[in-house]
């Protein structure tokens, strides 16, 4: 893995609440490389969602650093290539980090097509025709082109999540963050969403996935992180994590979920 170029370097990331009484994250250090499919597993309350949400600063970390594309986004300013101090514009960095939520978070007052074209038009300044063409192509890819004019309420959970994924892809992100993307779905719809994610992984998209789908972790992930109590307890390939777990907490966790 050292041969691949690193995209995000997380160093000693901490998120505390109530003067440190609650430690959601207590010092996580990890490098995310381009092309990685990093799957984060762990019991609920282990801080894996907080970790993921910290990556695009939906959570403001208490300390530590997140260097994305060479810029520490937890700081307010950074030195650019000419050595000038520049303000960190988090909106610019978030464009490059697609995020998929457990509860989809589609915009209910807009059609599927408008959901997908809003950010490309308003943030990237694309013209409507080009944005719509791209959106339709993406929808076609997940088999939902005919639902472009529908409202989110008219879709099933699995369809909503597929739209949420391509909505994030429409911004052409460098990394996709998935926060338990199948946890709110009926069991029969989990497969269709995982299939889209597998397709993305095959194309080489960098992905960080928080999930309870151990099958997905084993099959698609190239690195698996095990977190508990805000700490990164074990990291390794899927084979190492699932077949030769070391940490007692991991063994205990696997015995419960497998």
């Amino acid at each position, binding site marked *: 893995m050292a041969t691949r170029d690193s995209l995000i370097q997380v160093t000693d990331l*901490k998120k*505390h*609440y*109530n*003067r*440190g009484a609650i430690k959601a994250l207590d010092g996580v250090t990890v490098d995310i490389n381009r092309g990685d499919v990093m799957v984060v597993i762990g019991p609920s309350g282990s801080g894996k969602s907080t970790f993921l949400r910290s990556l*695009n600063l*939906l959570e403001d970390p*208490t*300390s530590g650093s997140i260097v994305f594309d060479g810029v520490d986004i937890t700081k*307010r300013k950074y030195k650019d290539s000419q050595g000038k101090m520049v303000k960190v514009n988090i*909106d*610019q960095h*978030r*464009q490059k*980090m*697609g*995020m998929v*939520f457990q*509860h989809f*978070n*589609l*915009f*209910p*007052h807009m059609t599927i097509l408008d959901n997908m074209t*809003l*950010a490309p038009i*308003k*943030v*990237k300044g694309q013209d409507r025709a080009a944005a719509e063409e791209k959106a339709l192509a993406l929808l076609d890819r997940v088999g939902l082109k005919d639902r472009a004019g529908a*409202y989110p*309420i*008219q879709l099933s959970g699995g369809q909503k999540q597929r739209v*949420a994924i391509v*909505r*994030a892809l429409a*911004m052409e992100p460098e990394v996709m963050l998935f926060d338990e993307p199948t946890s709110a779905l009926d069991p029969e719809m989990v497969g269709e969403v995982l299939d889209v994610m597998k397709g993305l992984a095959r194309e080489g998209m960098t992905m960080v996935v928080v999930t309870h789908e151990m099958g997905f972790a084993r099959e698609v992930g190239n690195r698996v992180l095990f977190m508990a109590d805000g700490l990164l307890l074990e990291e390794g390939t899927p084979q190492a994590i699932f077949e030769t777990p070391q940490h007692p907490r991991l063994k205990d966790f696997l015995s419960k979920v497998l």
Partner: protein
Amino acid sequence: MFIQMKNFSVVASYAQMFQEGLVVTILLSLFTVVFGFVLALALVLMRMSSFRPFLWLAHVSPGVFGFFERDGSGMKRDSGFVYHLGRFNPLSFLATAYVEILRSTPVLVQIMIIYFGVFQFIDLPSFKLFGFIRFNRFFPGVVALGMNSGAYLCEIIRSGVQSIDGGQSEAARSLGLRQSQNFQYIILPQALKNILPAIANEFVVIIKESAITYTIGVQDIMAAVQAVKGATSIIMEPLLVATALYFCLCFPTSKIIAYFERRMSRGDKR
């Protein structure tokens, strides 16, 4: 009998006053709603702004004010004086104070203060709109009522904004939308839809509340009632006419808005 038909024929001779009063009431309410809504939006933006001029206290580089910024173990502070000073938002404070003061005092007192206090020092032109609306009475009435209803509308809009699931903002921001874009395209459209019944209710309240402006000489429906009473000592009959007029204004208004509410909620249904 207490209410006599012949008294209505006396009132009928004042028909023009009631007619003009009706127009004044309608215009007063319309201008008030527009002014109140714009004011309310400004107040909401102030209350929800992230203008924190003292935040630098919590972000200066360690070593300079490091003692204030970080606790002994190197963590960002999340309590204490400097933390709360850093979180202090003067815009939000002003807007909140405005809303609470306006909501906790009688509208009659507010109108008096605006008319006798503020507009005592401002010379308004004394022309008449449409030949019968005295601008130097009408305008203070609009300002006073608008300032009052702005406070209430602010709370209504704010509750609407807060009723939107936090995931909406998170999705919008993680797509790269700025906070202002998030507010404009995602939060406000959904919030306005949710609070439409409350806004409609507020509009009806304004129509009814506008009756109070006769105390500063605005010649609305209520002023016509007073004119009849002063000239003829007949009181119940003109009051009944006023009741009918107010009802005919308020009832259809709430029905019309209910119709638009149903139309706007179409996207929510299968």
